[in-house]
């Protein structure tokens, strides 16, 4: 059965929330961070940096960043890092996102 309502204990749960910082001109556009971000928070920017690459940019609904730090770990140019921000409460939107992902069987969310 599809889950649709906001769980009753939603306010009791907080999830870590991170801010992604991109050092614009240091990026060489390898795209590792975009490819490997487990919550799909990044996408390739349309704009060029000084070196002529397309650096990543944070997608608009980037509430998903949980500050796992994988992007800063795999960036060959040390051009991206995350900061832990205030933990955030779970909203109805979050729940919907999860259920939609479940139902859509997004390739990313299938078993490896």
């Amino acid at each position, binding site marked *: *059965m*599809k*889950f*649709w*309502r906001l*769980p*009753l*204990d*939603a306010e009791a*749960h907080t*999830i*870590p929330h991170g801010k992604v910082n991109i050092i614009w001109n240091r990026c060489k556009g390898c795209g590792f961070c975009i490819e*490997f971000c*487990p*919550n799909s928070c990044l996408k390739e920017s349309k704009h060029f940096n000084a070196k002529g690459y397309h650096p990543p940019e944070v997608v608009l609904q980037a509430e998903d960043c*949980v*500050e*796992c730090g*994988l992007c800063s770990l795999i960036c060959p140019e040390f051009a991206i890092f995350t900061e832990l921000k205030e933990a955030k409460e*779970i909203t109805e939107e*979050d*729940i919907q996102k*999860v*259920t939609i992902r*479940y139902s859509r069987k997004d390739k*990313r*969310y*299938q*078993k*490896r």
Partner: protein
Amino acid sequence: MADLNGIRIGVYVCHCGKNIGGTVRCDEVAEYARQLPGVALATDSLYTCSEPGQEQIKHDIREHQLNRVVVASCTPRLHEPTFRAACESAGLNPYLLEMANIREHCSWVHLHDKDAATEKAKDLVAMAVGRAAKLMPQFEVTVPVARKAMVIGGGVAGIQAALDMADAGYQVYLVERTGSIGGRMAQIDKTFPTMDCSICILAPKMSEVGRHPNIELLTLSEVQEVQGHIGNFKVKVLKKARYVTKECTACGDCIKASPQHAPDEFNAGLSIRRAIYIPFAQAVPSTFLVDMDRCLNNSGIVACDRCFQACSHKCIDFAANDEVLDLDVGTIVVATGVDVYDPTALTELGYGKFPNVITTLEFERLINAGGPSGGELIRPSDRRRPQRVAFLQCIGSRSKRSNPYCSNVCCMNTVKDALLIKEHWPDTEIYVFYIDIRAFGKGFEDLFQRARREGVTFVRGIPGEIIEDIKTGDLTLLGENTLLGKHYRHRMDMVILSVGIKPHKDADKIQRLLNLATDTDGFYMEAHPKLRPVDTTTGGVFLAGAAEGPKDIKDSVTQASAAASRANILMSRGEVKIPAITSRIDPKKCTACGLCARVCPYHAIEGSKEQGFYRVIEAACQGCGACVPECRFGALDQTHFTEDQIVSQINAALASDPHDKILAFACNWCSYAGADFAGVSRIQYPHNVRIIRTMCSARVSPSWIEKAFIMGAGAVLVSGCHPADCHYNNANQNTARRVERFWKRMEKQGINKDRLRLAWVSAAEGAQFAKVIKEMEAGLKKLTSQQIQEAAEKLQKSLTKKSEAT
């Protein structure tokens, strides 16, 4: 009539009380049988299957030196074993018995036409006598039964079946799809009618399974493949990685660390769980697991190790892999259970839009002390305690819009829920809107009356619409009280939909793996609804719990114990006889072309061109007979369903008035059973059909169809299981191929190809079988005898041409 090469057949026509005798003039049939070649004795009796009836057969075998027995009574699927045993005890080989089905296929389906039914019964007896004359004694091989069992599904039925078999001393593999056993019963707060705490009585059983030395518990596991047969199943089980090792103490330190969340399935989405979680507090095994669909590490690299850092025992292992286990088991118990009906589709009730409309499953979690609200009954919209609560019955049951059947448990579940509310908060007003309250079980009526005494209001008539007040979240129910004939309008704080149950969504996967049959509602079919209620048509596979039909806990446990006991009988005997219906190759005629090996669904034919011959591996042959029509040289034949035997049945069936007759070939498992079901349901259809049984429709040889048309049969029906439901590993795709080829041939020769029909009829589709026969009858009426004669001549001509050429 006199002897026929020493063959002495005894014919017994059974009245079956009024079941047959009320429609068919049995004495006339017996009189007719006496004229048939080879018949030494023919008699009619009231109940042939009774003790005196069987004694009569045994006596006659000895006294009259009978060497074949024909019993014209019910379907061989019911009493063939009975009469075979009777023959055997009188010293006659059990394979020398033949049955004519004059009840399910004759008297019950032609209730109002005594003359036609009697004529048909005569034909059916003549067919059986014809076949009986060609029967040969057969000897069954015994195969060992592995003393191990597999139970699919870890709900209360699966748990009970596993415990019963393990206690009897057999090794049991309990395969459960989710992370813990317990199933639906673990989610429920109290049980009816005794109001016992559900998990309190289930948890001890669950932990017993966990520590039982004879049970191997396989959670997060799914059955992928089942090969083999009764006594020797080879099963492949995919055991998914748990990512948490057995050292886990379920301390829960990892939960807070996990950054990923999801709705908790156990609490019906009313609470949140993390990506690392334990299904519920009493889970067995009591080990956390990682939901890889939600974990950040699901693309093969460890992106986040927060739970690992928080775990003091370091028992999280992201390097764990799925494994495929190979199990050898002798018996299988299927207890896949049920899902609840999703009422979102019934838009007038507003489920999915109005927060205060909940299902009974959500209610169970709300009222449970271990649930998301700690046992407080609250409205989801504002967390206030509702003062006026409505229960709506039959949501998703007994309706053409959803499921047509009664879900069995919802009425009493609602009565129980209403009493629970009254118990905790007596001032709550409770309304139950119902169609009928079905309180049929032990102690059920008492509970229902208690609910009425406690002041629960029962209103007959389900609301047609629910309207929500957006400001307050209150709900207005509009409908008609069908007892008073008046419209009602009730304002409620909360509405609880008493949702029905339906087969588990994975039930069809298991059905295909084990070649089970399902009824029209999707529940598994038992081998016989009255006398073999836990057996399936697949030998060695048994049913337990609600997978077979909606059931409450008590019935599920009862059936689980029954299934375990049936499996225990097989395992304790340690061996089982395999029917002697395998194929055989005549080495003299075999040209080693290998066509038969190619169609065998079990790879039971081995050999090669170089070797110069092919042979059947008897232990692997399942007896479908798909290989026999494939041989162009007549080197193959199937034991007990030989070419001779079937041809003599065709001859007898079409001996008189062939132009008006429909000759039907039906496979034993689906279509013949479907025709039986039409009989049991008393669905009337035209009487000119004559049914010949084969094990699989793939046994039906194009030469039989050809012969039938040459003899002037009006129409021929070939029927089998639905594609993918074939009892013999999709052997019936050969049926389709052969029939299509015959159609092409008919087209080429200018014969109306509608006269040959291919129909897929399952064991539950009695009505479908009757419909097919009615349609064929309508087609037959349009034909003239001249057309039939011309077609027969054309086919005869091409047949003689072919035989001259070879």
